[in-house]
């Protein structure tokens, strides 16, 4: 379910089935690496939209957690932890963070949720059907990962 009022309402009526929160993590660079930063956000945005389509009935796709690239890691982690606390309090059993910012790999241990790191693929050169194909194969891999986590902590 998406972060729009109508679907959040569906969520509220079907909470017991929607046990998984998905939070995209966007690093925003202002200045030098602006373009890479936008590219990554675009990629993760497309990927999570596609993912949401596959798992509509079991996940709630949150608006992206956005932070400045040059903010201190500690501060960013602290803020995300705060999101996590709130999300877990709201009866979600699983939290997935989806990002292409490599920094999160080292921070994963400090979080309860799972960090899924996906290297960003530049979409610029692709036509739309190539994009769709690529997203499909990415989502297939995520499907395996999600199913596995769901099994572990059923």
């Amino acid at each position, binding site marked *: 379910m998406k972060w729009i009022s109508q679907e959040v309402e569906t969520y509220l009526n079907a909470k017991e089935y929607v046990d998984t929160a998905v939070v995209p993590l966007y690093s925003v660079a202002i200045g030098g690496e602006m373009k890479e930063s936008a590219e990554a956000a675009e990629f993760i945005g497309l990927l999570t939209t596609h993912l949401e*389509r*596959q*798992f*509509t009935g*079991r996940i709630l796709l949150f608006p992206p957690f956005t932070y400045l690239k040059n903010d201190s890691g500690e501060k960013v982690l602290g803020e995300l932890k705060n999101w996590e606390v709130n999300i877990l309090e709201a009866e979600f059993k699983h939290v997935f963070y989806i990002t292409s910012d490599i920094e999160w790999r080292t921070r994963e241990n400090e979080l309860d949720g799972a960090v899924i790191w996906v290297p960003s693929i530049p979409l610029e050169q692709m036509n*739309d*059907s190539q994009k*769709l194909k690529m997203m499909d194969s990415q989502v297939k891999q995520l499907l395996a990962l999600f*199913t596995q986590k769901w099994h572990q902590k059923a």
Partner: protein
Amino acid sequence: MSKERVSRRQFLSYTLTGVGGFMAAGMLMPMVRFAVDPVLKAEAGGDFIATPKKVSELTDEPVRVDFTFKQKDAWYESDVTESAWVYKDGDKIIALSPVCKHLGCTVNWNSDKEHPEQFFCPCHYGRYTKDGTNIPGTPPLHPLDVYPYKEKDGFLYLGKAKPRKEA
């Protein structure tokens, strides 16, 4: 998602209630799906939309067929992609919507090892037989929607998926 009509009176009351009312009207906006290949775009064919699938390629094994069309609302014209699971049953073609009737996940064909030859929903383990009938004891309460179809110049055209009458 279904579009709801706003009657004149409702619309007036939305307008008169100002910002709050406007937000309520906003909830009725249809969602925007993301864009795909313009090449696969629908040619005019009534309400039927061209798919890239040749009818002659279909077998009795369900395959996923994606197709794209334009959807318009007051703000955007956007490309919407939908999928169907399509196979042949004798000389009939069956095209099923992949949207699970429980809470809307996408179902896959033959992806659960314990229950081969069925449609399987990974979200809450909903299952359907090949013809789209929901299997009792799994969460979905209705069979998968069915697309009406047409064949034109050898290609498969699909209409708007409709709920099937309960058996």
